[in-house]
């Protein structure tokens, strides 16, 4: 077991990388447990790894690809000495100083911890999802849109993620049907305008997916009109779900205070209920959820951690 670090950062989206950049520049030698590969957004780089054009991150006049942006973030933090491990935190103990975090069988200790584990996409919760995942049902439009050239696709949801995916998928599909449970989109106006102007995109308003159909691979979706209750089948080869997010906070349950949906509660900047544990990015934000706000809150957490560490006496136990 190594000596405790000053700062351990869990997660590596915009919040985690920015916290790493700032704490590295403060000579706090941060170690980042960046997560493990997955085909959901719970992976190194976070949600932006599954996106294409990011047009609203300031500083990029012509936009930037999501994965490229995360590579740049990481390289910038690494330039100042931030260390990265491709492991996923599986257990934490925030009850004693120094704090302990485990990944696989290894224990990492630190005097301050910044939690930036983000959020992942919600699925529909249907049995058919488990069966058809990877066979037409996908959690990654940028990965799998390619396999639906000339086909029809359903995108479920009405927020920015859903509309971005729908527009992206028109590069491949002949028709993309957006299935939304309300009669209006929540997506930003510019994305709505683009979707409404796109001849390949159709909308099924006030509709939910009751079942994903297909034997071996996706052949369609069974929709239900929420006002009439009437069911109808829509033939598609691909289904992409973007109905919302759930925070990646399971390992912190019982130790960090959370709201009813599992988002970590922060106060006075990025402070959690445990002194010395800070939280940043989507793991504590279900309102703004932007790359730029996550980066901003990662910076806040780094500054909060640095100032808090300055007030802490170094004892033999935590040195």
């Amino acid at each position: 077991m190594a000596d405790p670090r000053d700062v351990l950062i869990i997660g590596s989206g915009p919040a985690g990388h920015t916290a790493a950049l700032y704490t590295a520049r403060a000579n706090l030698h941060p170690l980042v447990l960046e997560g493990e590969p997955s085909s959901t957004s719970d992976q190194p780089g976070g949600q932006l790894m599954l996106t294409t054009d990011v047009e609203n991150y300031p500083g990029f006049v012509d936009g930037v690809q999501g994965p490229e942006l995360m590579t740049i973030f990481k390289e910038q933090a690494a330039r100042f000495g931030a260390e990265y491990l491709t492991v996923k935190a599986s257990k934490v103990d925030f009850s004693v100083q120094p704090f302990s975090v485990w990944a696989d069988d290894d224990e990492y200790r630190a005097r301050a911890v910044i939690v930036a584990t983000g959020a992942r996409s919600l699925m529909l919760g249907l049995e058919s999802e488990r069966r058809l995942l990877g066979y037409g049902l996908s959690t990654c439009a940028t990965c799998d849109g390619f396999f639906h050239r000339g086909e029809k696709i359903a995108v479920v949801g009405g927020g920015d993620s859903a509309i971005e995916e729908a527009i992206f998928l028109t590069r491949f599909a002949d028709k993309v049907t957006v299935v939304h449970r309300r009669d209006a989109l929540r997506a930003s106006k510019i994305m709505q305008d683009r979707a409404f102007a796109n001849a390949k995109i159709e909308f099924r308003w006030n509709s939910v997916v009751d079942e994903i159909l297909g034997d071996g691979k996706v052949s369609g979706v069974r929709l239900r009109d929420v006002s009439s209750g009437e069911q109808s089948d829509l033939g598609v080869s691909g289904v992409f779900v973007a109905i919302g997010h759930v925070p990646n906070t399971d390992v912190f349950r019982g130790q960090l205070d959370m709201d009813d949906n599992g988002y970590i509660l922060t106060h006075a900047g990025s402070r959690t209920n445990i002194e010395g544990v800070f939280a940043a990015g989507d793991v504590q934000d279900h309102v703004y959820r932007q790359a730029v706000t996550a980066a901003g809150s990662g910076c806040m957490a780094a500054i909060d951690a640095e100032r808090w560490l300055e007030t802490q006496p170094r004892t033999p136990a935590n040195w």
Partner: protein
Amino acid sequence: MPADPRRDPAAMESTLTALTDATFEEEINGSDEPVLVDFWAEWCGPCKLLNPILEDLASEYDGRLRIVKVDVDESPDVARRYEIMSIPTLVVFQEGVAKKRLIGAKGKGQLAQELAEFL
């Protein structure tokens, strides 16, 4: 602005052998060891994150399990034959026959567990 892989700092170079539509059959059938095929593409973020883990496993499993890659964009026929509809998809072949299919990127520990039966 479309991504230009030549300028993309995340553009990938893998040490693993790339099979193509032309070489796939021969390489898979002619192998004495089981072969893990990683179906991937340059534009797939999770695929790129998976690559260094596969490179690690390839050296750990040297002589027991071979790990190779197929770019689905460059070799669509193989991808179609094995009904790849999502990447990354990993398929383990034994004596030329597909024995196991793993969909989606995974961590090293989980992959090692899934592959243990072929070692």
